[in-house]
């Protein structure tokens, strides 16, 4: 006799796995900080070590993503839309992906950041990591959201977290503009191909912030339902 069929009505909530995935994404993105430090300090060995860590964690995040996708059948009845969960997940994964892109490009082309841009670039990286961190904080509110049945007070709280995320993302936009103008000043002194790729790096780094913000907007859509 088992008699345990009743417990089978409770499915596995996607919230915890979603948060774990974002946690992994955040640690992957955070690795960009020591990576950039090594880059600006011209320490190639350290850079490679951090790059490898980034790749490893991106792969781990990818595995978590696939695992969660697998156990989200359409017969699950959840307080959040299945499609929203999957889209938040994809967006989270893309945050890690863009961190890997940036590091990969820098390693692959053995790029240097011009001295006059170093300080601003470091700031940009920091703000992008902040954006990912803020997105993680917002995603951490998901269990509180479900606890309160997406109540008004809790939704407002999450709303405030998302406003802060938007502000951080705006910072990253402004830093990108500043970096581009700094690079423009240097254009004539640098090899043209390097210039092209420096623009690319600025853009790719900014993408981290953009995508972190889009994690937030997806979360906002969940709240609106």
């Amino acid at each position, binding site marked *: 006799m088992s*008699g345990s*069929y009743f417990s089978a*009505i*409770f499915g596995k909530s996607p919230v915890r796995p979603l948060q774990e995935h974002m946690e992994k994404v955040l640690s992957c993105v955070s690795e960009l900080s020591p990576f950039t430090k090594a880059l600006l300090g011209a320490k190639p060995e350290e850079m490679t070590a951090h790059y490898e860590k980034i790749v490893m964690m991106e792969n781990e995040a990818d595995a978590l993503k696939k695992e969660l996708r697998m156990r989200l059948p359409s017969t699950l*009845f959840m307080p959040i839309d299945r499609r929203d969960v999957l889209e938040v997940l994809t967006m989270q994964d893309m945050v890690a992906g863009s961190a890997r892109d940036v590091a990969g490009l820098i390693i692959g082309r053995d790029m240097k950041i011009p001295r006059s841009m170093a300080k601003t670039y470091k700031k940009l990286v920091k703000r992008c990591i902040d954006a990912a961190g803020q997105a993680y904080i917002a995603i951490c509110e998901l269990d509180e959201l479900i606890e*309160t049945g997406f109540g008004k007070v809790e939704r407002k709280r999450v709303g405030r977290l998302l406003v802060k995320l938007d502000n951080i993302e705006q910072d990253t936009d402004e830093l990108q503009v500043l970096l581009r103008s700094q690079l423009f000043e240097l254009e004539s002194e640098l090899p043209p191909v390097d210039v092209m790729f420096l623009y690319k790096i600025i853009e790719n780094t900014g993408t981290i912030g953009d995508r972190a913000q889009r994690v937030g907007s997806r979360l906002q859509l969940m709240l609106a339902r």
Partner: protein
Amino acid sequence: MEFSLWYLGLAAAFGLFMAWGIGANDVANAMATSVGSKALTIKQAILVAAIFEFAGAFLAGGQVTSTIRKGIIDAASVESNPELLIFGMLAALLAAAVWLLVASRKGWPVSTTHSIVGAIVGFAVVGIGVDAVHWSKVATIAASWVVSPLLSGFLAFAIFMSVQKLILDTKDPLSNARKYVPLYIFAVGFILALVTLLKGLKHIGLDLSYMQSVVVAIVSGIITMLIGIFAIKRIKIDPDQDADFRFTNVEKIFGVLMIFTACGMAFAHGSNDVANAVGPVAAIVSIVKTGAVAQKSALATWILLLGAVGIVLGLATYGWRVIRTVGKNITELTPSRGFAAELAAASTVVIASGTGIPISTTHTLVGAVLGVGIARGIGALNLRVVRNIMLSWIITLPAGGILAVIFFFLLKGVFYNGPAI
């Protein structure tokens, strides 16, 4: 009657076996939410179940028992041949018990209530005649199987919404929990006491008027509430635990509430499901005693006691293991939702018990859980499993019926020596 002692002995044995089965299997579903949300340890759950299943069965099990005993079959149809009803009721008990044994071995979601009702209707139609069944009563019972999960789902939804408005979705959930949780505890005590009292405790020598019942119910509600307030006071609030999940301490207070709703759930389950075991026994006993299909005779107290003891025996010998298994598998349910589901289900079931309608406790609880889910309160529910549970009666009714017919003719072949029919 020639085989009177045989009949009585078999009835008591089958009834006890059926009650044992209910205690071994069914109780787990009623208690699992409390164990799963860690409001109760296994030991506490077993203690609560034993005490309140017994109380529910003994104090409030009479109404449904009399429905099973004489509400489904028209006594006039077997007046000339009361023994047929004895065979039928024995067959129904045996059929339901066997079917439950098979189903629970296979892990099928099967309701005791559906099994026994299907079995009684089955033997009556084939063994006596289509007219022997009170079809209007059967229709009411069948309708209640649809209505009861809906009602408890709606109640659970409303209760959970009120919890959000009053406690969870406020600026200070902790102090609101302290303020409002005792009111829900009051509701548990009040509802259980009221339904039990209104339906009369004549069989234990207590006969109260309507107003007296209401007053006693309010008093029991208040007493329950005071115990609750005392228990909440003893809870240690540790702000550090709220770092990861901000409602950890609030949930502890709901944990206290859930101890009370678990008692309510066990009481409700006992009051409705004991009838599945002792209803047929009661019918047999009254025929054997009077030699006729007596409709007026009162329900003997010892029969309810037999059922109550059987359930506790089932719980003690086997049910505790099932509770442990089922409880372990429910990890996503916190006390704030578990209590809402339990309070809704328990209220629905005791109301059904009071009106004498046999319903499925598990279905009612599943309905309540869905209600909380619809209020966006539960992480994930497997709709396919829910559907399978809800539709299980489509197989259970005919299965119980067919088995009962087989046993009916077997018993008739062995014992019957009356006039040919």
